[in-house]
Structure formats: C-alpha cells, structure tokens
C-alpha cells in the first residue's frame, strides 16, 4: 500500500521502462518469427521513450529536461514507424523469396 | 464537477447528519464525478446507437418509399431497436471452430472501447467534456484509428476467408484515410491556433459567419474532404468495403452473432456520431448556434470566463450550456443523417477506387487546402469569420460589447509564447498575432 500512497517519481517510470526494455530484448532474442523480432524492437523503443518522457516531465520532477524529453520521444516514435515499414518490407521480401518467416533460416544472403 | 459534488452535494448530505464537510478535492467527489461522466458518455454511445439504428431504419424506409418499423413501441416503432437488442442478447453466441477464440471474443470490445474512448475528449458544450485534452482533435483522430484494430482482429480471428478479406480491406482503407483526414483536421487547428476542441469551439462563438466553414474558400472545400474521409474511416457506404454485404457476405462480422455482433454496431454508430461531432466542432461552430441567443450579443446568459475559472453555478449559464449541448447534438445528428442518406443512395465503390479516391483526390485536395488556408491567413485576406479569431474577440471588446479578456486560455498562453519568442529574436511575429 506504500506504493499507492506515494506520489510517482521518475524512477517509477524508469522501472516500467526497464521492464519494457528487457521484455523487448528477450523478445528479440527468443522469437523465431521475423515479425516477432520486430515487435521486440518496438518494445525496446517504447521502453526508451518512457524514460525520455519521464525525464522530461515537469510533473515528476521540477528540474526536468523540459521539452527535450517529449521531443526526443516524438522523434523516436516517428522513426520507429519508418523503421517498422522498412523492416516489414524486408520481412515480406524474405517471405516471398524463402517462403518462410523464420529468422533462423535467414543466414544465407543469396536471396 | 468533482468540486461541485464534494462541496455541494456530499457536504450538504453530510451536513444533515452533522458530519464535517469534505474538502473540495476529496477523492469521493472525483470518483463520483468520474462515474457520472462515464455513465453519461456510455449512454451517449449505447442509447445513441439505439436511436441511430432506429433512425437508420426510418430514414432508409422513407428514402425507399416504405415506412420502416411501425409497430414496436407505438406509432413510430420507437422501441424496435430495443426489441432487436433483446433478441440479440438472447441469441446464441457462436464461436466458429476455426476461430482464434480469445481474439474472436475480444475483438468487438476492442472496437467498442476505441469508439467509446473517443468521447473522452469530445466536448458537448462549453466545458462539458469528459476530460479536456489540450490536443483533443489529435486524440480523437488517433482513437478513431484505433477502431480499425478490433475490425482487423475480428477479421483475422473469425477463421473465415471472407472475414479476413474484410479485415484486410479495413486495415488498408483506414490507414490510408487517416492521412487526408489528419490534413483536413489540421486546417481548423491552423486557423484557431489550438488543438483544444473547447478552444476551437469557443473561438467560433457569435454569429454563424464565425464558423470556420466560412473562414475562407479553402476551409469550405476542406470540410467536404473531411466529411468524405470521415465517412470512409468509419466504414460507411459508399466506403463500407469491410462489410460489403454483396461481396464479402458481411465482411469482418460474418461469423459474429448475438451480443458481440451488436457491439460492432454500437461501435460503428458511436464512431459515426464521433466524427460528425468533430465536424460540428471543427467547421460548424460546435455548440454555438447560428445566432448567439445566449451570448453577450443578445441575452448575455452564458458563463463568463471569470465564472468558469471560479466554477460558479448560475442557472442562466447552465441553460446556455444546455442549449449549446442540444445545438451540438443537433449538428452531429445532422451529420449522421447525411451519412445515412448517402448510404441509401449510392452504390459501393470498389477497393481500388476507394484507394484512388483517397490518394488521388482527398490527399492532394487536403494538401492544397492546407497551403491555401495558411496562405489566406498569412496574407490576412478578408474572411467572413470576422476573425483571425483572437482579434475578433479583441475587436468585440473594443466595441464595448463585452468587457472580459480573451477567453481562450490556450490562445492567451500561445500569444505569450510568441511574444516571448519575439523578444528572444528568433521568430518573426506571425501575421495576425497580437503584439
């Protein structure tokens, strides 16, 4: 109950960010489906985003990064979208050429 | 609201039992206020869907030279949808053997939740909003885009090829239409300088010439683009490809029955109202009537800024707000009716034609209008709007009609930002800004 009665601090956010980050890393490491790996990357990026936003939030800390945190988060989101599009295109091309989406089979680059 | 509940209702109640009054920011008030808001908004969606489905039947009936429902619940078949709802509840809830059961069961709720969440930021009248999000437009557009998610899930999880086609079509269509829709929505934002729907609504107060629709020719054109895109993004005919009953049987909800099926419908009608309401706020003055009966110009009943800031309650102000709410709902329902009218008139487009409409017509038109509106503002060309909005406020004040400061906080803040920045010497002051 201690958790509930205390105001949220930056480190609360950082822990959540860490969980997302680690989940993403594990996801990237264990998934054999290329799209699963892609989802892991999204999780990692989001973990980072949470940190940026937390550091930039005036609500959590009075001497915060200010707007820079939010701006970085925005850049990350936008770039993640672009990255997803490119990665998806690669995955689909891989699928077309190999009739598989298993990244374990992706070790030959002959296409 | 929370303060009101705490300080007025609960404290009065407690007073009868000689218990100490609660502080204005007591949690109980917040919870109750939240509950009241939720229940209100749920009713807008759920009862709205009931009414709209009834209306759709009546409208389509009249369009098609027949009567529509006439029996259940009196002369006009008022209760037809309710009867149907009861029927749907009692129907067997079937999950196909091929379906991904978890996702299949969740999908309708995802759709409904997305549609419902949009109402969080939709103001029904001046200040009557679930939560005033300062980027409300953006929020609603994002949420409307979320609804597609439930549809895709339903399409995939049904384990039926027709459903899958429906889901894929929906995904392609909605993702594409978000682009022009975003552009169209930006235009009122550019004109008002705020993403806050309440601010945008407030700025259009006064006579109907102040509606953004009439701001300039580009804004006028862009409304039609917006309405087209909105129709497409909520999946209404002629863009209802995801369900396309003559091609895909019923598309993404082919395999659904009973209550789950009805959730999709609630979501659909909820979204229809949502985008129509957004259109009303963005282009048609929101809750402001064509003639400002309650405004300072005529009866002067509406709340003043000071009153809003202080949270005072006054009957006149309340009535003005109520009238605004009626006004707003009227406008939104008109939008919904037009969508119905279109649905029962036009044949359905083909998927590639839908894409063409989006990419070849809506996007370029939206872009041109965007540039046009920016140019219009920059050149300070004449506009029936009587405003570059904040100036209009000022001019009204100068004419001595009202003596209150610029009411829109967001505007004031932004003006301040610009002023400071100008001081910093980094940006030229934009045309139309106050110095």
């Amino acid at each position, binding site marked *: 109950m201690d958790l*509930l009665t*205390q*105001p*949220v*601090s930056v*480190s609360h956010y950082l*822990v959540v960010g860490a969980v997302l*980050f*680690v*989940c993403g890393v*594990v*996801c990237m*490491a*264990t998934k054999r489906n290329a*799209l*699963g790996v892609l*989802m892991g990357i999204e*999780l990692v990026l989001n973990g980072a985003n*949470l940190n940026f936003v937390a550091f930039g939030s*005036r*609500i*959590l*800390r009075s001497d915060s990064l*200010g*707007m820079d945190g*939010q701006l970085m988060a925005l850049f990350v*989101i936008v*770039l*993640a*979208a*672009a990255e*997803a*599009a490119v990665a*998806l295109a690669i995955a*689909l*091309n891989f*699928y077309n050429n190999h009739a598989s*989406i298993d990244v374990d089979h992706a070790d030959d680059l002959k296409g | 609201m929370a303060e009101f509940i705490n300080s007025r209702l609960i404290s009065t109640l407690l007073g009868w039992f000689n218990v100490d009054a609660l502080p204005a920011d007591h949690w109980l008030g917040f919870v109750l206020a939240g509950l009241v808001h939720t229940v209100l908004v749920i009713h807008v969606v759920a009862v709205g869907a009931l009414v709209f489905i009834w209306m759709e039947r009546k409208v389509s009936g009249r369009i098609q030279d027949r009567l529509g429902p006439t029996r259940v619940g009196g002369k006009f078949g008022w209760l037809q949808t309710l009867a149907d709802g009861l029927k749907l509840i009692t129907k067997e809830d079937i999950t196909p053997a091929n379906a991904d059961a978890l*996702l299949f069961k*969740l999908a309708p709720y995802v759709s409904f939740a997305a549609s419902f969440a949009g109402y969080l930021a939709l103001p029904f009248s001046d200040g009557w909003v679930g939560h005033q999000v*300062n*980027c409300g437009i*953006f*929020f609603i557009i*994002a949420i409307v*885009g979320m609804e597609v*998610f439930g549809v*895709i899930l339903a399409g*995939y999880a049904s384990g039926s090829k027709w459903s899958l086609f429906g889901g*894929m079509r929906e*995904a392609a269509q909605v*993702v594409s239409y978000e682009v022009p829709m975003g552009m169209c929505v930006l235009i009122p934002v550019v004109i008002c300088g705020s*993403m806050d729907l309440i601010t945008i609504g407030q700025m259009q107060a006064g006579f109907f010439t102040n509606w953004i629709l009439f701001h300039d020719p580009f804004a006028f054109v862009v409304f039609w683009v917006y309405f087209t895109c909105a129709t497409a993004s909520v999946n209404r005919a002629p863009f209802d490809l995801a369900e396309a009953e003559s091609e895909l049987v019923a598309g993404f909800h082919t395999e659904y029955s009973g209550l789950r099926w009805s959730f999709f419908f609630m979501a659909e009608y909820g979204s229809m109202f949502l985008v129509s309401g957004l259109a009303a706020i963005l282009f048609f003055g929101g809750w402001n009537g064509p003639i400002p009966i309650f405004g300072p110009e005529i009866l002067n009943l509406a709340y003043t800024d000071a009153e809003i800031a202080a949270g005072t309650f006054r009957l006149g102000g309340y009535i003005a707000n109520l009238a605004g709410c009626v006004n707003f709902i009227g406008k939104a329902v008109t939008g919904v009716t037009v969508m119905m009218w279109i649905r029962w008139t036009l044949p359905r487009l083909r998927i590639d034609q839908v894409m063409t409409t989006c990419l070849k017509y809506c996007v370029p038109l939206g872009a041109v209008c965007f540039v046009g509106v920016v140019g219009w503002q920059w050149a300070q060309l004449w506009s029936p709007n009587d405003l570059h909005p904040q100036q209009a406020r000022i001019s009204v004040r100068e004419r001595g009609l009202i003596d209150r400061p610029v009411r829109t906080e*967001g505007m004031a*803040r*932004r003006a301040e*930002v610009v002023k400071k*920045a100008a001081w*910093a010497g*980094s940006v030229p002051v934009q045309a139309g800004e106050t110095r």
Partner: protein
Amino acid sequence: MMLLAAIQWHTFFFLLFSLLTCGFALAVVFSSNVVRMAFFLTISLGAAAGLFFLAGAEFVGAMQFMIYVGGTLVLLIFGVMLTAHERFISMKTKAGEWVMAAFLGGGLFLLLVRATLMVPQWNAPNLQRDQVAQSEVHDSAAIGAAVSAYRADSLPSSSAPPAAAVPAGKSVYLLPFEIVSVHLLVVLIGAGYLARAKKRNPGNAWQA
C-alpha cells in the same frame, strides 16, 4: 476509508497503466502465437500512452496512439496476415534459448533497476507538482514551436543573458525535424517502390 483517502489517485492510475504495460509486454514475450503477440503489444503500447498522459506529455501520448497503435501496429498485423501460414502462426522457441534469454534479460533488468534506484534525485517525488502542472506550458502549440524554432519552456530570464552555444529560447530541433521528414518521405517512396506492379513475361510461375 482512511486508506482510500490516503491514496494518491495519480499514483493509482500510474500503477494501473504500468501493470497493463508490463503485463502485456510479458505476454508478448511468452506468447508464441504471432497474432496474439501483436494484440498484446497493442494493449501494452496503448497503456504506455496512458503513462505518457499521466506524465503530462499529452501530445506524445496521442502521437503514440496514432502512429504506433493506429499505424505501425496495423502495419505489423497486416504483415502477420500476409504471412499467416499455419506453420508460422505459432513458432516455438527452444528451451535452451529461453534459458539464455532468461539470463540475459534477468541480468539486464537487475542492472537497469539498480542503476535507476542509485540516483536519489530520481527517487524523490516532486511534491510541488500541482503548482508545476499549473505553470507548465504543455500546450501542443509549444511543442510545435519547439520543433520548428524556439522554446517556450526555457526562455531566458531578463537578468541572465544567454551564454550557451545554443542561445536559450532557441531550439536545436529544426535540423533533426527536417531530417526525419526527409527520412519519412524516403520510406514512403520506398514502400511505393516495393508495392509497385512489375511486368514480367507472360506464362510465368503464376500459372503453375
């Protein structure tokens, strides 16, 4: 009653959203069905958007909804459906990989949390946050302004003239913003290039 009265509602919602975020992130990791993974990821990221809202970054939250949840994930699911062969829907991971990943992940997590908790400033909640929230310029217009040229949140006070390399009040984000825009354009063109129809000789593999 006492307990309820003591609850910080901001914290309550934070916990709610963070539980959703973390729970569904874990579900993503442990699910082997790729479509369900995508669905869990959506909820996880949606809840993360809620956390953004709670931190006062409303614009970023809405952005997260629109681009991540509405765009990127729909794209992902699209990809999932295009490759939705039965054998790719569920792909099991070998036990050895799980062990490896558990070690790696666990170590990483401990490291991160330790690092987090080591800085006392980060642990201290902001007790004046109500006042801060009032004065904070979190209008989306300010973000727009910051992206393009100037900053509303770090204007110099009149007493202290700017001395840094980047003058206070000015924003350094114009160039990155432009780069991102060009990048997006390139991606758009690339996507169009990939999806275009190619003419090939008649009687190709299509008929087989």
